[in-house]
């Protein structure tokens, strides 16, 4: 009974989260440009999507910025987390509080402040500023994800590796890194997700040559958002979903194989 209750609750919340997405996908097959008005099934928006350079370019830019920014943020943030972890408690607390600033700082303020900074420094808006800004707001998420893994890690592991012949660098690569990997992956995923969807900050620091998908979508709001964007979103959604499913299936299969191998050894 309570199991049934909990399941239907989860179902309800998931419905709440996915209902708009299904609407969005549904209307990507709509004949007309209208969002709320179903006139018939068609694939024309998919076809048009592949001829729309603006959208495709914006999509590529978005991906590029998200990948570069989240990778750099992950590297920088992981290094930072390690450094901070090794600090004394007081300086650690101080730095973590500042790290928390971008999280509690409204995005629009951050966008504006970065815009002011770049102008002051004389950096032209473009890919570079976009990436710099994205790294900046991604860093805290990486650090906040990696820190606890470092704290949970048995610090003797590092010594054990040195004991077995690793130089400090080798010990880091072969032991510390794999140990905190789940935290790093989480941090990267968070950073990537935030990057993909950021409008407020990107808006203020994007320049004349590159714009991200959210900005393009926002710019359409005088005329109206083209269903080609819906088509693109539908494709992204399906691809991500498939990847997730495949990864999951693969994991389960690998576990099963391992168990089988083990039984054979015994």
């Amino acid at each position, binding site marked *: 009974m309570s199991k049934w209750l909990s399941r239907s609750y989860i179902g309800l919340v998931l419905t709440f989260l996915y209902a708009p997405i299904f609407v969005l996908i549904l209307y990507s097959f709509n004949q007309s440009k209208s969002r709320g008005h179903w006139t018939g099934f068609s694939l024309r928006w998919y076809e048009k999507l592949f001829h729309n350079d603006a959208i495709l370019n914006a999509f590529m830019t978005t991906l590029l910025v998200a990948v570069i920014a989240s990778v750099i943020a992950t590297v920088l943030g992981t290094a930072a987390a390690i*450094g901070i972890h090794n600090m004394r408690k007081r300086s650690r607390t101080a730095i973590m509080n*500042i790290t928390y600033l971008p999280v509690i700082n*409204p995005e629009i303020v951050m966008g504006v402040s970065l815009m002011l900074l770049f102008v002051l420094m004389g950096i032209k808006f473009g890919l570079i500023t976009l990436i710099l800004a994205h790294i900046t707001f991604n860093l805290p998420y990486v650090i906040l*994800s990696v820190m606890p893994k470092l704290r949970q890690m048995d610090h003797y592991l590092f010594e054990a590796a040195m004991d077995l012949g690793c130089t400090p660098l080798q010990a880091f690569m072969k032991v510390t890194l794999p140990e905190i990997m789940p935290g790093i992956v989480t941090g990267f995923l968070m950073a990537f997700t935030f990057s993909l969807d950021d409008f407020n900050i990107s808006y203020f620091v994007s320049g004349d040559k590159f714009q991200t998908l959210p900005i393009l*979508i926002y710019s359409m709001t005088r005329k109206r*958002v083209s269903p080609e964007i819906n088509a693109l979103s539908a494709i992204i*959604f399906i691809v991500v979903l498939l990847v997730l499913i495949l990864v999951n299936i693969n994991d389960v299969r690998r576990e099963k194989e391992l168990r089988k191998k083990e039984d054979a050894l015994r």
Partner: protein
Amino acid sequence: MKVKATASPYLLWMALFIIIPLGLVAYFSVTDRLGNFSLENYRASLAYSPVIFNSIWLAIIATVICLILAYPLAYNFSRKSANHQRTLILLIMLPMWMNFLLRTYAWMTLLENNGLINRFFGLFGLGPFEMINTSGAVVLGMVYNYLPFMILPLYSVMTKIDHSLIEAAQDLGCNSIQVLKNVIIPLSMPGVTTGVTMVFVPAVSTFVISRMLGGGSNMLIGDLIEMQFLGNAYNPNLGSALSMVLMVIILICMALTNMFEGVEEKEGMLL
């Protein structure tokens, strides 16, 4: 081998891209258009206090709803098998990969008087219910967009609660409600704090949601700030002052909620 130096690029980065820019905003907020010192902007911000209170009010409602929705869900997740947990969490994160504007647009399609929901109720002869263009719709938009930020930290704290603690509480005489009150809630407090922050902050400063779902008549402080930087008047100084006000409000709210358990370690409450 305590290496601290690896943090230095980050520290430099923070100084350059977080501290200095915030300093710039603070500087702008106390100057006028000509660059002279002036507190006029803050005085002008005062005129907008109804908008500011409206923002806080709506953000609080949205945060509370998120908390109420997310809490049982996160608890539920945390008691499932590891495989299930991972799948469910990815399911929660997946919608965030879709564009935020598009998802909000889709809500319009759902909520409109002739929208899908009303049409659905129409089948049973109910409605139409007036849902769009109300502050309720704005709150819904906030809840929808920021719910994952509440679920994830709650979940991550709750997976760390040892089941034996729950048994210990039962053993000491707690029924399920008392277990919840005396063990689970206090232990999940850090997650609540993080979740509240992660929801309240963007909710109080959003402008897209209010514009799209609120029919434009539920102005929030985010709209105000956006208007100063991207509006007719183009008044970055006032915008900066409003931003500072917003930040102070957020800091105060955070301070209030954080007092629950003194200074909590905030790390790692995200996932």
